[in-house]
């Protein structure tokens, strides 16, 4: 349906006005409605999306009471959880440790996961990379065992042993 006013854009709202018992109806597009002052879209869409994100951080059914108090602050930058709720931005890298437990459900909600599997900076040590590798191989190994492909599983088990030896973990659990 086209807008009654400009007759070019698609109408997206139906406006019914009753003035002195006189009922008038109009179909308008967002621009014409705004221009005619029929409806005020007071928020700008950009901040709206941002607000939506902030909202996500706030609402949950099962909220840790400590999180609600929001008093604990980061020793490095002074951010409190309330600050974070308000701005939707984290203050510094230490915040992730300070508020770690509180962030976890949030991260699961955003990403569906809360553990990193991508690139690792070299200076953070090669062992992490190998540990991640072992984790991946172990998952594959379990799959092979389920499928009863024991020959392949044995190969992977040896691979894990070698990797564990490499980072001085031989025989022990991660």
């Amino acid at each position, binding site marked *: 349906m086209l807008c009654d006013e400009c007759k070019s854009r698609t109408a997206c709202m139906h406006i019914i006005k009753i003035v002195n018992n006189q009922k008038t109806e109009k179909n308008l597009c967002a621009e014409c409605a705004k221009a005619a002052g029929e409806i005020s879209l007071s928020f700008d869409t950009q901040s709206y999306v941002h607000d939506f994100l902030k909202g996500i951080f706030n609402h949950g059914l099962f909220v840790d009471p400590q999180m609600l108090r929001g008093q604990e602050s980061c020793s490095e930058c002074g951010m409190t959880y309330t600050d974070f709720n308000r701005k939707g931005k*984290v203050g510094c890298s230490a915040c992730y440790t300070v508020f770690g437990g509180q962030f976890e459900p949030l991260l699961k909600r*955003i990403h569906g996961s809360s553990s990193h599997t991508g690139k690792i900076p070299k200076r953070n040590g090669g062992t992490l990379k190998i540990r991640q590798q072992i984790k991946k191989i172990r998952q594959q190994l379990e799959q092979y065992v389920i499928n009863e492909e024991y020959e392949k599983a044995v190969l992977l088990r040896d691979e894990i042993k070698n990797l564990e030896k490499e980072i001085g973990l031989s025989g022990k659990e991660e």
Partner: protein
Amino acid sequence: MLMKNLLDQPFVHWMSSGAQDGDIVLASRIRLARNLEGIPFPQRANGEQLSQVVSQLKSSLCDLNSNEQSDYMFIDLEKLPLLERLVLVEKHIISPDHAREASNRAILVKQDTTVSIMVNEEDHLRIQCLMPGLNLVKAFTSANQVDDIIENKHALAFNEELGYLTSCPTNLGTGLRASVMVHLPALVLTGQINRIVNAVIQLGLTVRGLYGEGTEAVGNIFQISNQLTLGFTEQEIIDNLYSVVKQVVDHERTARGGLYADTTDMLVDRVWRAYGTLKYARSISGQEALALLSDVRMGYELGIINEGSNCNFNELMVITRPNFLQKMSDRPELSGNERKKLRAQIIREKLTND
């Protein structure tokens, strides 16, 4: 490319023609978000801390230069007037946010304009690589090399579980945002775009307008990018985006073919009318120019039109943006009408010369 050229010349590398799927994909972009360890993220850092970040990264300039054949230049955004910063936004060298706030903000730009590093945007570092056409792997390789060089010199905020730590939790993990700029006029004309956008969103990607978050899809140009950054490897993220974009490109090609076969006369007329208006108009708005350029670009790719075949539509898109026009004119402040006249004149000249 000298700094002056970067601001005055419309052409930057991503506009090159002849790239993979260049008939539909304008450019591919990789962005890595990184922060220095021990300094609060830009939003919470004070002026002193911010300038400390700038000077630390400025010191990486020589490392970047010794490893790359071409050189990087350092640009202090504070010393750049707002207009010039906005020109850089129109050329996709920096983000709108980075242009708005200039104090203690900087960029390191590679001379060939493929790589730019925004300093103190939302994160201390935003390493960005832009390549023409569908070229995500090459863009990622370049950005990753820069990341390796930076990481070699500076300790980056990183956590075993959460990966690279970023100011916004939506960038955690890889800090990777891969995006592709696509021109989809036939999907829009045939009314299929909403269905495609919905399908793309279901695959964990987002679709936005020409200049990123919150902008409109003018000239039928859309940006498709990954939404999730944590729990996937860089390769998985890029593979997913690549395969989805490939699908979108196929659909657009099919739609173009169908449109041409079913409504040849209408489409040919539409393309030539657009070309005629662009070539002879004496005053034209930015929106109209982009819409017409979109028609001509499609007509050119479909072989409907040959005129102006040497003309670079990607470049014309940037030339016709308001801030770039202002920069090109020698007048202090163009009025809306003057800008429309200048825009029409420049397009006319481009189409006549080529």
